């Protein structure tokens, strides 16, 4: 299993994501100006501040040359994970429903939180059990998930609400405590928490590893 982690100008967590993914497979860094994905089996759009969050979070990175290839890859069923800023980019790119708004506190918040796995059907949560609780950190200023009510209903129906903050732990005011959502196919997952910072007992929990392991356990799709 080969993971490709995209690096935009302003990405911060791409090495962390590469390190995390390399615990379950091979992982390499992809450059935002590339137009091809180099034959990788899964894509990670990492956290950070692509293009300095200028204009609007994720709004510029979404137009990077590599995102055209990511769009094709995702629409053909390839597993794509967007973490934090990556989630914001995938929403901007139209690969995931909804949008991320500023935290209710209007402040950056870095904190360990607990997540409930709502759906274990997505490509990135298959190694989890439904209802399983994961300890993973969040760190963001713009992480309040929002989608209109009808969209949320549709998402619930299709099992697209994949992760929720455990009761009482919603750190940002996300609607319905939503922490992570997938596309209808379940191959594209975006989440605000950082699973790549939860893969080593030395630095915290190891619950985040399950997301990478979920993708690694799958048969690679032809991209």
């Amino acid at each position, binding site marked *: 299993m080969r993971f490709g982690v995209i690096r935009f100008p*302003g990405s911060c967590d791409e090495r962390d994501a590469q390190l995390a993914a390399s615990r379950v497979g091979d992982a390499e860094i992809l450059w935002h100006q590339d137009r091809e994905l180099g034959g990788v089996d899964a894509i990670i759009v990492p956290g950070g501040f692509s293009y300095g969050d200028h204009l609007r979070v994720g709004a510029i990175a979404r137009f990077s040359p590599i995102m055209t290839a990511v769009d094709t890859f995702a629409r053909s069923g390839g597993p794509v994970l967007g973490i934090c800023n990556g989630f914001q980019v995938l929403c901007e790119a139209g690969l995931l429903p909804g949008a991320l708004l500023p935290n209710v506190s209007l402040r*950056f918040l870095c904190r360990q939180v607990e997540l409930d796995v709502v759906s274990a059907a997505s490509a990135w949560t298959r190694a989890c059990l439904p209802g399983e609780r994961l300890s993973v950190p969040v*760190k963001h200023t713009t992480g309040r998930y929002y989608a209109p009510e009808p969209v949320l209903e549709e998402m619930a129906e299709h099992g697209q609400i994949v992760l929720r903050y455990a009761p009482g732990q919603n750190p940002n005011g996300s609607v319905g405590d939503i922490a992570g959502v997938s596309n209808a196919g379940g191959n594209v997952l975006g989440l605000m928490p950082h699973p790549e910072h939860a893969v080593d007992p030395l630095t915290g929990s190891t619950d985040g590893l399950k997301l990478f392991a979920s993708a690694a356990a799958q048969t690679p799709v032809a991209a």
Partner: protein
Amino acid sequence: MTRHRELGLTDSEYDGILAALGRVPNQVELAVFSLMWSEHCGYKHSKKALRTLPTEGPRVVMGPGENAGAVDVGGGLACAFKVESHNHPSAVEPFQGAATGVGGILRDVFAVGARPVAILDSLRFGEPRDSARSRYLLERAVAGIGHYGNSIGVATVGGEIYFEEAYEHNCLVNAMCLGLIETDRLIRSAAAGVGNVVVLFGARTGRDGIGGASVLASAELGEVDAAKRPTVQIGDPFEEKKLLECSLELLERDLLVALQDLGAAGLTSSAAEMASKGEVGIDLDVRRVPLREADMEPFEIMISESQERMLCVVEPEQVADVLAVCQRWETRATAIGEVTDTRRLRILDAGELVGDLPVTALVDDCPLYDLGPAPPAVGLYPAPRAVLLEGADAQEILLTLIGSANLASRRWAFEQYDCLVGSATVRRPEAADAAVLVLPATPDGVGGGSRRALAASIDGNGRRVACDPYRGTVEAVLECSANLACVGAEPLGLTNCLNFGNPEKPHIAWQFTRAVAGLGDACRALGVPVVGGNVSLYNEGGGGPIYPTPVVGMVGELPDAARAGRLGFAREGDAVALIAAASWAPSLVASELSKLRGEPLTGELPQADLGELHMTHAAVRQAVRSGALRSAHDVAEGGLAIALAECCIGGGLGANVDLGPLATRVADPLALLFGEGPGAFVVSGPADALRAFGGAALALGTVGGDHLALTGPPGEGSVAIGELARVHAHGLANLLRW
């Protein structure tokens, strides 16, 4: 003939410039001299004292004088680190002042080739309860630090905040950065190779920060500072992120001869320093510098402190490759000059010579002044306002202290910082006495499978230094060493930021010289070399001088990250013990309790037995490293009772503690509970393991229950951990809502 005075130069300094040049300087030349001979760049009031500090040690690979110092951390790696102030800009505009303080210290670290891995910060403000302005400064400075550090992707892993009336008119914002680099790849800033090209890369140059070093950093702040706001730089962490990655790639590809960041005094200082260190000359053409505003004067271009810029020296045949790397990172790069053999800094404007300055006069001939120290005849600082009533019992004092501005949890602040990026943070803020970062795994597996780690701590208690500049500064060094001991780390080196008032005043000169003497003595006794630092003088506002505040940043190493100590009690039934030096003699002088009682800064601080404490710290370090302890926490602000409370809160566990065995050591029950002074640690672990330390570890009780229950000479008392934790957690936020 008063122009030089407006630029902060004295008449005799101006005469020195006339002599050095042999003629009257033009506007450009005078501007350059005024910056190079400012306190900020020339250290003219501090250098003589700083020369007394010990700077050598077996692990030092780069000492003071470069952009950052560096120590060998094994496995072929060096840790480069430095602390620097951004006080005056932060007092004028706290968000940008603090943000660019972080930006500046990051550049110092990657200017030596190291990848920044951690930031710590040390902040001082006026009393939040009394001052809306201090609450504003705190809110905005913390936001500025977070904005820059988070956006650039460097973990902010630790720091400290104190609130004292003496900082009301002059807050302090000190930032420390640690970076890692393969030791043999450290790069220096000395320009070399006549004919080599000088390339400026990064952001464009604008009118922000004109005269920051001389106007802001080297004079007292007045009542109205809005007019100085244009001297504060505006930071752009995205620009710096690209600059960082670009710089490291240029170094990785061996494309650079020398590298230097542009900080205080901009191009002027960077070019002069590079030429001075390389014993060469540099020609710069200001018209080639990419500008934000087209009509900038040559002197403005030379002294602009626009952020996110670096200067490098490149061999002519490598220039194309350098520009290509910069373009890939979308970073502007322009050849603006060349290295010459003239030993002069020559400034051209579209080819026309507009300034011609001897480098040695700029850098080496900056006048150095002897200080005229004299102890103050009367106390300099008014007594604080009492917030604790006479006759409060121990339980009331404990709860008031743990929720007070200086002792309450810093969670409100540190949750605004990314402490995780880099995947190396083994101990997050408030999990241990020092931050711990695991080092990259070595391919050869040195250490038999265990992962080595770095530890870092930053400390400096201004109130205690104000009480006794010598002993207070010794305590700051000891506090850092004690913090490292609690995670099992051995100190490798130290950086310092000396924040003081106006050194031209005898009592400030006295504070400064006594503090530097204390710093030097403590470093020699503990065997910790000073590898770099920064001086911030003239910290005086309308209300008089700040507390003298030497901030010490210490870096250490530990052999096994998995055994890094924690501060919180970990397991029911564990024994609680005190490891205390024989010289431990806590007293209420200059303590947090004395402050809450509104007492003036009088009396003597306990004298530290440095030789003995060196051994005590080593004993604690060894105990943590052996894995025998489950927690270790040094007794510091607020004394033993606060230390015990913090251990309980940290672990979410209570403890039953009998202070009876300590009655013979400390006669005054309140001093036993809340007295301060170096030399004691609260540790916990299996009773058998603690007994192995014999008399060195004095058994005090047991971890367990949901109360901190104390018996002994002060009487009996018990506080629910839930209540302690609540008061501790909300103390700061409550003060900010005041």
